[in-house]
């Protein structure tokens, strides 16, 4: 009976298509990226090896440096402002009995929608003439702000839209972890006289630290992955004010066919993703012990 499950032809039939497709669209592009990144290819002329010139140029390129800064702003915003809000919201939802499912379903909803459609939707809300936001602000007496055309406001506008789309996703992640904590722990603390906020801060938060770490890691990765929303809402403008690394790379490659330089930028993005998540792991996540119930 063993031989049935040892049929090498069937094994190949089942495994080979997956491996082939995966190799062609994941591994091969990754390898060619490393190759193109060291050339000056622009799609037409010969590919000449230029060593680390692309990488050196990238860090000399003031526009690209600005886009790195924007990525870091997005990263700091999501880790320092969104994550605490996410924790508070999931604590609030976990504390109620009625409407818990409704809150969970509703806050999660934006994360299943297309980022490009959300970009269009919010572009409309930010519209200075007919948009919802401006109508509201003006009725409160605030001056008209050209959100997406103003170099000071365009990035905050994108940050808000991004937070609007993704916060619910993380709230649901943390909520699931909170609801998985055995009730007895909470009840014991209640009997000992701990108030709601005390129980939340001294009991629940320490118990869900592993999942908070996951959320922070995902936020770091997410901040480096931001691209659709920028391309749709502002295209990186006004005057590069909202360009992130990925949108800058896409524009370089598509508009100027600067493939060599563009792939070098993509390798830099990849390196940032690896280094930042590894740094976080080493500095913070490793120190904590996993909580087992």
């Amino acid at each position: 009976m063993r031989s049935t499950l040892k049929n090498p032809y069937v094994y190949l039939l089942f495994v080979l298509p997956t491996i082939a497709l995966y190799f062609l669209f994941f591994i091969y592009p990754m390898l060619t990226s490393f190759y193109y990144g060291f050339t000056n290819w622009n799609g037409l002329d010969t590919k000449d090896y230029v060593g680390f010139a692309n990488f050196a140029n990238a860090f000399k390129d003031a526009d690209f440096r600005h886009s790195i800064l924007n990525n870091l702003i997005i990263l700091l915003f999501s880790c320092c402002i969104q994550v605490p809000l996410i924790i508070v919201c999931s604590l609030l939802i976990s504390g109620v009995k009625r409407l818990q499912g409704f809150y969970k379903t509703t806050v999660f909803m934006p994360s299943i929608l297309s980022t490009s459609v959300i970009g269009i939707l919010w572009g409309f809300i930010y519209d200075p003439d007919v948009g919802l936001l401006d109508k509201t602000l003006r009725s409160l007496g605030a001056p008209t702000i050209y959100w997406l055309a103003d170099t000071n406001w365009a990035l905050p506008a994108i940050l808000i839209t991004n937070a609007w789309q993704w916060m619910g996703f993380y709230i649901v992640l943390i909520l699931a972890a909170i609801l998985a904590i055995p009730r007895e722990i909470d009840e014991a603390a209640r009997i000992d006289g701990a108030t709601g906020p005390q129980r939340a801060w001294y009991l629940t938060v320490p118990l869900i630290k592993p999942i908070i770490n996951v959320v922070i890691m995902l936020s770091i990765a997410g901040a480096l992955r931001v691209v659709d929303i920028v391309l749709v809402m502002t295209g990186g403008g006004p005057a590069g004010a909202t360009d992130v690394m990925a949108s800058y790379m896409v524009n370089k490659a598509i508009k100027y066919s600067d493939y060599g330089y563009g792939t070098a930028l993509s390798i830099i993005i990849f390196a940032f993703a690896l280094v930042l998540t590894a740094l976080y792991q080493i500095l913070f996540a490793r120190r904590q012990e996993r909580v087992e119930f």
Partner: protein
Amino acid sequence: MTPTLRKSIPHILMMAYVVVILAPFLFILFSSFKADNLAIALHPFGLPKKWEFENYREAWVKAKINVYFFNSLYLAFSSAVVGVLMAAATAFALVRMKFGRISAWIYQFVLIGMLIPGNVLFIAQYLLVQKLGILGTHWSLFLPYTAGALPFSVLLICAFMRSIPRELEEAAIVDGMNVLRMFGQIVLPLTVPALVTVFIVNFLGNWNEYLLSFFFISKDSLRTLPAGMVQFRDAFQTNYALICTGIVFSVLPVLVLYMFLQRKIIEGLTAGSIKG
């Protein structure tokens, strides 16, 4: 503070959040029925004075939302189906067939894909589909979509298959069933819950994908909804009512799906992120 007040504070805060989430949708929905920008600008919050259903016909036909819609539908569907079947076959081979060491290697190899952020591969994939001669065709989306979903799908289906007891398969072998029929008639039906989850996640991902579909497809008749919507907005920059109608067309199917399958969707999407 009275106990009732203290109990209602979380509800008040969360209701405020819910309003922030839902208000844009209501705004879009109402605006989509309004005659023109003036009607939107004068009463941004109110219901339309006169319901303009004509907007929907105009957006569907004239603005070619119907074309984008069906392109998205069949691409998202076919790629998700093919991806799920490929991943299921691979997961079966890796988990159940007796090729221990090789299977472990292949499993690790496929999972590396989850470390690579999607947009990093953008240019290289662009050049690849160009070299393959499929740039500008639906193949240039179908193949990367299917491939892109494989690591997550294999991971999730493998995890599920490991939890299925082997007895049924062993009985099938004793009865002389060959491995292909066993896969099709016993393993696949048992794996359906995981397959559905993976299918939904992949379908949503493909339905929503923007970056590749915008830059790999230049022919208007081949565009998918997310890319077509951006095109549509740029073309109808001044007609907000029509843009809102387009948004409704692209968001509504997902929301309907979400209404019926919310538990599956939430479970699938969160599982994908945590395990990755």
